[in-house]
Every structure is written in C-alpha cells, then in structure tokens.
C-alpha cells in the first residue's frame, strides 16, 4: 500500500490546449484519475496548458504530460490513454521514470533557444486565478505606473523602444503621447485582439495563458493617456480566451485593480469586452472602431487619426495584445532592460506562430534580430520531411510576403522584413518546402483579401478581384504573355490608392512572389508546368528513368492503377489512367517522379 504522505507533492499537468484536446488530452486526464484512484493515490491532476496551442508551444508532440515529484519535473511526450497505466505504475508508484517516453533533445532544443518574457508564465500559472499572477509579481507594474506622473510613464515606454506588435510597428510611447496631449475629457484605450491573420495564434495564446498581463497593460496605458474606459475587441471565434478574460476582469474588479479608485490612486478604470463578428478588416483601427460602435466594419479615412478622433469621436489609443502584455515587465524592470534585448531599432522579443512544413510546429518567442536560419533549424528542428528542401518562409500573413531560402541568414526585425518586401505583421510564420507552389500561394492570399475587402474603396474591391482572376487563369494553365507585368502594375496601383491598410498591403504576397519566384510564374504561363505540382490542371507525371531505383513505392501508392511496375523494373505511368492525384510523387523517396 502506498503511503499517501510520500506523494503529497505529486502534481500531474496535462496539456489541454486545442492541440492537446485534439490529440486526446481529456481522455489522458480521465485515465490518470482512474489509474490513481484505483491505487488509492491522491494527486492533483491539473490541466496544464489551458487554452489552445499556447501551452509550451510544442504541440507537435502532444499530449505532453508533466509529472512533478519532490520538485523534479519529468515531461512525457505523445502520451495516449494506454500509456498512462505504465507511467503510473513505474514512475509514480515505483519511482522509475519511463525513459523511452520522456521528451527527447527536440523538446529541449525547441525551448532552450528561445527568450521567454511574454510566454514565460503561459502554461505555468493558472490563468483563472489572480493570486497565481500576483504571486509572481503581477500588477506590480501597474502599481508602479500609478505612482508616477502619466508623462513619466510615457517616457519610460518611449525610451524602452517598444513598437506596436500588431503589424505596422509604430512606437507605442509616441502614440500614447499624441493621445495624452488631447484636452478632451473622455478618452478610450482599446486592446486589439481581433487576430484575423490566417496562420497566427499568438494573441489568443497569451490571453488564454496569462489574461491578467493584458489587463495590467491596459491599466498602465489607460493611466498614461488619461483614458478611464477600456475595450477589448476580441474575435468571437476565440470562446475560451473570452471566457478567461471575463473571469480575469471580474477577479481584478474584486481586488480593486479595476473600477473606481484603482490601487487607491484616485484613477478610475473600467474594461469591457466587445466580441467581434468575423471580419478580417476589423483588425484595422478605424474599422475596429466602427465595429465597436455597432456598425459595419468599414474603415474611415485618416487623418483624423484615432488618437485625435476615435471611438464615439473621442481620442482613442489602440494597442495590440502582445504590445500591452509587454508593458508590466517594462515598468517593473525598466526601459533599459527592455531596450537591451533586440536590435538597434527593434527592441524586445517577438512571438511567432511557427507552422507549415517544419518539424517542430508551435508558438515561439525569440529576441528581435534573430536569424531565420536559427528559427527554422535550431528551434524548428528543420524541415518536416527530410527529402524536401526549404523554399520560402511567409511572414505577415495576407499583408506580408515571402522570404526565399537564399535570404535565410537575414535578421528578423521590422526594417529587414520590410526591405525584402514582407513585413512583421502580427507574427505568423509559415514554412514552405518545394512542394508549395508560389503562384497558388499568392492566389490563396488574394482570395482571402478579396473576400475580406470591405468594398468601400474601388482599388481594393475591384483591384483585388482583377488580380485574383489573372492568378486563377495562370494556375489553370490559361495564363497569357504579359500577365506578370499586368499583375505588377495593378499591384503597385492598388497599394498606392487604397484607403486602408488592407488594400495597401493586399498585393504584397503577389509582388513578393513575383520578385523572388518569377521563374515559377513563367513556367506556368510559357511552359504550362507547375514546378511544385500543385496546380491540378498543369500536372503531368512521368518517371525519370535515370533517377528511378525500382523500389515500387509509387506503384503501391497509386490509387488508380496507373503506375506500371514489376520487381527490378523501372516504373512507368499510364497517362490515360492517371488521375493526377500526386500520390506517387509524395511516395517517391528519390525524387524521380517529375
């Protein structure tokens, strides 16, 4: 019989992010509870990383389980319910960890190369318990800010060099100063949590993992600019994040951190949540304001900028989630601490959602100026499939561009990314290998921006549609001579003449892929070939007699019996039977299917 006392400090933490849940973490938790109850062991089975992928970011190896005993943590990867009994039996009862299931060097490489400031607490503290946040020094930054003069707070933030993490990279301190100067009595601060970029999930993870850091950031910002009302505009697609925020706001109100007379300083501050309704355009400042006012999310011409005339016509500061959650540590640790991280013009760290065809997918936080190479190979563990090579990395989502493999040593900061025709954006980073067609990629983004164009201004509404038509005909093998130049001309005009950031950046994915992969466009138009074999109408599969090693993998993979092969014979593809599915191409280990 196990002595209860000896296990009193036993904690089991299970990842329950979206990634974890999809991998079956609930079943794992149930199994642990069952196995422990059967052996009459009392332990706290905690849901570790609340929220979705946020957790420790390493979702490629979900379900991750921490077993903490006597202060020592062992982390298991790829845990399924049938593995639970052995872990309980050997590790928890007998004290011998199951070595073969513990995380490998990948896990450590993934974490050791990162610099965690914002994500440090995500997955470590209980996001629904304010005392957990206070215990690690939470709300000290806000307390300090409120003991200073608002202008001193702005000064700290300005000298720290913090720039907006939502995409454009405007200096946060400067934005605050503009708003602070306005003599209007009523002002607003808005937290932009409308993370609409496909391929990005940083903001959601921060909110789900550490909602109080965002609220604390808003108190600091509100005090600095003189706003007594804060709004958090968040996508309705993020139900868990919304629920966590509501809980956090309620708890902060109870503690007197929100409401009348915050920290007994005489400053009043209230926060309300506004749920977005699914429109990419609402990430744009003025459209976001229109949406909070209950209208169609149409952008308004700037100037006047929101810091002058914003929500309900009053001066309004809008900051991104990641920007706000940087503030507490800037206030407690000082501006010079923050500006010591990063490059000359881009300070601090940046959170990226690393996805696509890479081995270690997940959420990472790295210092500004780190090279792409380090991100992809040291943290990301290299390409997902060893027989594929890196082609490009897409940053900035539908507003950004791609960085070709040849520029992989480039530092990742605001200026470098813009100089190459991409942008920081909110932090999506999608890795592509040689099976990704760049024309198809451009078409994908244009479909997205075209759909999401609000329709108010003509260059964006009509222009993106025309560009999409041209891209579509290229991918369908109907491209014409001169199409590339037409795309470039249209793209440049749309950028110059659109009303808001959506239209001004929508052509970027097209222009940047033409810039670096013009030969792929030309291959589609002139030779009728899609080099990556993505565009269905252009696929023609043949086996290279030179490269074929007669293994027969293509023969077994083919669903339509189009591959003719016998042992010790080179494979041949019957064009009549081929349905152009690409199964043989994926199956070939030697790259001999052309």
């Amino acid at each position: 019989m196990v002595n209860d006392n000896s296990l009193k400090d036993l904690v089991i933490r299970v990842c329950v992010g979206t990634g974890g849940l999809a991998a079956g973490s609930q079943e794992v938790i149930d199994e642990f509870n069952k196995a422990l109850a059967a052996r009459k062991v009392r332990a706290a089975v905690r849901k570790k990383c609340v929220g979705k992928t946020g957790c420790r970011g390493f979702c490629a190896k979900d379900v991750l389980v921490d077993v903490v005993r006597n202060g020592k943590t062992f982390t298991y990867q790829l845990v399924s319910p049938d593995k639970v009994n052995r872990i309980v039996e050997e590790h928890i009862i007998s004290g011998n960890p199951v070595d073969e299931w513990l995380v490998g060097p990948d896990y450590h490489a993934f974490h050791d190369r990162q610099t965690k400031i914002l994500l440090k607490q995500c997955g470590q503290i209980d996001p629904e318990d304010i005392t957990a946040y206070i215990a690690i020094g939470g709300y000290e930054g806000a307390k300090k800010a409120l003991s200073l003069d608002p202008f001193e707070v702005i000064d700290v933030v300005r000298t720290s060099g913090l720039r907006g993490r939502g995409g454009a990279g405007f200096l946060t301190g400067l934005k605050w100063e503009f708003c602070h100067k306005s003599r209007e009595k009523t002002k607003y601060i808005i937290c932009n949590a409308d993370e609409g970029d496909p391929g990005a999930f940083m903001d959601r993870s921060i909110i789900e993992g550490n909602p109080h850091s965002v609220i604390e950031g808003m108190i600091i910002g509100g005090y600095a600019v003189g706003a007594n009302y804060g709004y958090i505009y968040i996508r309705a697609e993020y139900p868990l994040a919304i629920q966590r925020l509501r809980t956090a706001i309620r708890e902060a109100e109870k503690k007197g951190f929100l409401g009348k007379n915050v920290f007994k300083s005489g400053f009043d501050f209230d926060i309300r949540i506004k749920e977005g309704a699914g429109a990419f355009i609402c990430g744009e400042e003025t459209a976001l304001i229109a949406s909070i006012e209950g209208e169609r999310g149409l952008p308004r011409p700037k100037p006047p900028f929101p810091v002058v005339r914003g929500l309900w016509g009053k001066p309004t500061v809008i900051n991104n989630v990641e920007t706000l959650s940087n503030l507490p540590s800037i206030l407690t640790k000082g501006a010079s601490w923050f500006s010591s991280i990063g490059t000359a013009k881009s300070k601090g760290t940046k959170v990226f959602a690393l996805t696509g065809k890479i081995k270690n997918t997940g959420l990472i936080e790295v210092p500004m100026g780190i090279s792409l190479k380090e991100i992809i190979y040291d943290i990301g563990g290299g390409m997902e499939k060893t027989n594929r090579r890196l082609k490009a990395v897409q940053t900035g989502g539908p507003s950004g561009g791609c960085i070709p493999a040849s520029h992989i040593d480039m530092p990742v900061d605001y200026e470098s990314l813009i100089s190459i025709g991409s942008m920081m954006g909110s932090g999506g980073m999608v890795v592509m290998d040689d099976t990704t067609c760049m024309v198809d990629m451009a078409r994908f983004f244009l479909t997205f921006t075209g759909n999401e164009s609000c329709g108010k201004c003509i260059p964006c509404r009509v222009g993106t549609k025309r560009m999409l038509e041209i891209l579509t005909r290229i991918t369908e093998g109907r491209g014409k001579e001169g199409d590339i130049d037409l795309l470039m001309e249209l793209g440049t005009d749309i950028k110059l003449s659109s009303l808001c950031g959506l239209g001004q950046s929508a052509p970027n994915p097209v222009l940047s892929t033409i810039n670096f992969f013009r030969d792929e466009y030309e291959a589609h138009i002139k030779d009728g070939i899609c080099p990556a074999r993505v565009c269905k109408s252009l696929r023609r599969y043949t086996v290279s007699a030179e490269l074929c090693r007669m293994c027969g993998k293509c023969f077994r993979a083919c669903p339509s019996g189009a591959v003719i092969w016998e042992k010790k014979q080179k494979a041949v593809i019957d064009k009549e039977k081929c349905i152009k599915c690409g199964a043989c191409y994926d199956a070939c280990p030697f790259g001999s299917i052309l």
Partner: protein
Amino acid sequence: MIEKKCREILDKYHREKGNVISILQDMQESFGYIREDAVNWFSERLNIPASNFYGVATFYAQFYLRPRGENIITGCCGTACHVKGSAPIINRLREHLAIPEGEDTSRDGKFTIESVACVGACSIAPVFIVNKKVFGKMTVDRVPEMIKEIS
C-alpha cells in the same frame, strides 16, 4: 414564443450605445440564425431600420440568414492548413455527404460544411472541427472515420 427571448435580449442591451452586433449575436445564439420576424421586432422597438440590422448581418461572417444543418463541420482554410492540404479534404467531405455544388448544407439538413479563415491551431494543421470537437492533422483517408463519429 420568440417574443420572450427577444425581450430578454432587449433588456440586456437596450441601454447600450452601438448594440446592433451584440443583439444579432444573441439572436443567433437563441434561434440558430438571423430570423426576419425577430429583426423586425427589434427594429420597431429600437427605432433602427431593419436594413441596418441586415447591413450589419451580411457584413460579418458570423451571421447566418438561413437555418443550418444539425451537424456543423468546419474546415480551416488558413495559410498553414492550406499549405498542408485542407482543400482536398473539403472536396472529399462534400462528395461523401453528397452536398451539391454551390450549397453548404446537405439535402436532409443533417450536415453543413463551412470553411473559416483560421481557427488558430496551425500547429496541428490541417484542422477540422466537427460540432466543436477538434480533429487535427486531418487526412483525406480519415474522412469516413470523422463522419462516423457524428452519425
């Protein structure tokens, strides 16, 4: 019948500036879609033209003007999912459920397929959500298994 629900929603929001989106969100939550009779009910009481409600409802992707199927299958078409091949899976699903071209709901009203820009779970792309259950790293071959789980 709908009056009682509408009254509750009105009590919750009538004092608020800019409440059209919140009302529509609650309306959809209660009725499953944006009902014409409910819109007219609010329009009269708040003195906001029904066209305003429809203007907002058709602008945002969240609102539906027609009832949806019993089971909702959401395919993510974000960048990562696209790169990892979500389109062939959606095609296979449509085939499997016999949903005609240009429609999103099967004839018997059992299934609705929709696609969203990004569910923010890119590290397990391609992602499909069936009645709020998340299926990560989906493949074409797993389609029948996924459908089986519902029916």
